């Protein structure tokens, strides 16, 4: 039932997005610029050095590609979550609460963005190029890589969800969800550059380093099943926190708006 509703929402959104093809094309070019910025940063560095904290050029570019894929998937599938603050502020959350589908799921998927999916090949292209610089990667490693990427997407989505749930306590927080996107800056760089307490923080409480680094470490054979277990534990933690915030928030919600 819930899955059918989600698929229907996606199909309606696809039709709506196709109406604005030219706009989608420009959105694609915008994505290209962002990915190229990440590539050029590493090209500028690797033009003068061999490795960054033990990461080679190929591995760093794989990181750029993987993060781009992850962010585009989040942008494509889960951006509906951003509407929660507005719905709470305006008192319009009932539109979602009264439907026979789990509300957080409905919120997440009600604004599927086709333009972001168009940008998915950009990240895939960078990843493919990076892999051409890393010979000898066996095909089976794409299984843990994909699994890790899915876990990362779920963790990232739940981080955004936890943040937007704060809108039950704050009046206006349009800029607050940018916090989590700004924090994603920490995911752009090889895990090796973070040390000590910062590294611990960025892999547990603010698990930004695991988002793109863990899938790449699994793909390049520098990590094992413990990384997947780590991601699953972090996911469970954020799912519990998200559920708690949602329930407490709903108790506080009055539907009056303003």
């Amino acid at each position: 039932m819930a899955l059918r509703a989600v698929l229907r929402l996606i199909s309606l959104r696809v039709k709506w997005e196709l109406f604005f093809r030219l706009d989608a094309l420009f959105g694609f070019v915008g994505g290209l610029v962002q990915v190229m910025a990440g590539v050029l940063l590493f090209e500028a560095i690797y033009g003068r050095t061999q490795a960054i904290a033990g990461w080679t050029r190929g591995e760093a570019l794989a990181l750029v590609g993987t993060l781009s894929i992850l962010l585009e998937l989040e942008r494509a599938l889960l951006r509906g979550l951003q509407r929660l603050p507005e719905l709470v502020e305006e008192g319009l959350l009932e539109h979602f609460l009264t439907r026979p589908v789990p509300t957080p799921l409905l919120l997440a998927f009600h604004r599927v963005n086709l333009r972001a999916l168009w940008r998915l090949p950009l990240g895939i292209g960078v990843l493919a190029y990076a892999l051409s610089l890393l010979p000898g990667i066996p095909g089976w490693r794409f299984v843990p890589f994909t699994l890790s990427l899915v876990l990362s997407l779920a963790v990232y989505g739940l981080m955004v969800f936890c943040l937007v749930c704060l809108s039950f306590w704050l009046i206006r927080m349009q800029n607050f969800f940018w916090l989590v996107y700004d924090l994603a800056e920490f995911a752009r760089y090889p895990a090796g550059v973070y040390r000590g307490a910062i590294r611990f923080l960025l892999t547990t409480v603010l698990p930004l380093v695991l988002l793109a680094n863990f899938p790449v470490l699994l793909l390049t054979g520098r990590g094992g099943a413990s990384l997947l277990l780590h991601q699953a534990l972090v996911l469970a933690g954020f799912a519990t926190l998200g559920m708690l915030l949602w329930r407490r928030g709903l108790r506080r919600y009055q539907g009056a708006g303003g």
Partner: protein
Amino acid sequence: MRLRPYLRALQVQTQVTLRYRGNVFAFLSYVLIPPLAVFFLWRAVLGGERALGGYDLSTMVTYYIVTQYFVANTAFSAWTDIGEEIRDGRLTLWLLRPASHYGLYFARNIGGWIPYWIAGLLGAAAVAGILHRYFLLPQEPWRIPMAVGFWLLGVVLAFTWGYILNLLSFWTERSTGIVLMADAAAVFLAGGFVPLDILPLKEIWLLLPFRFAGWFPTQIYLGRVGFAELPRELGLLLGWLLTFLVLQKLIWRLGLRRYQGAGG
């Protein structure tokens, strides 16, 4: 030209922004987080007295803190409402007002940004405090007002560019994608991601006007541009600004001929 309506628009927009002060402070993350994150990368690359393109670790850290303040506080996409109002016919209400549409939106834009500029200073100061071992102050005090002056002209330039892109809504169904694409490109071309002078093909990036909204004022701050070069650069900046203003007038007139105000 009567300035009063524009000053009033500026004042009202500042008040509107200040209604939600928490929202303004949340924006600090944009000034605070990227320089902190990138610090770890550059520490790994430039640690141990190494340098890249004339940037040692301190210069690089300072570059990111100052540039991030400038770039984060520049509205490269102007105001997306402009394009949406053209599309749905609400522009008609603006046409009835005895003031320039560009002028009013510019005033509103500046008014809306002033609280962010002030709050952003706190953010930049905080990150400079956290990374105080690496943050550099200019050796010649005149460099700070000069950098800010160039940046403010860069803000006008960036707004005019974004305004022109929004006007493309006279011809397209929706200009959001164009504006956001240009926004991402302008942040990159302003040096918001990487210092432009260490990039491959730097001659191309440095030819474009967007560097005046981030990279160039930061170069003044860092002492990497001499005083003798400033008149020439100011001339270039004003030349670009004049070109954009003429283009804006032209597109506005052509667009109005096409505008029907029906919306939809």
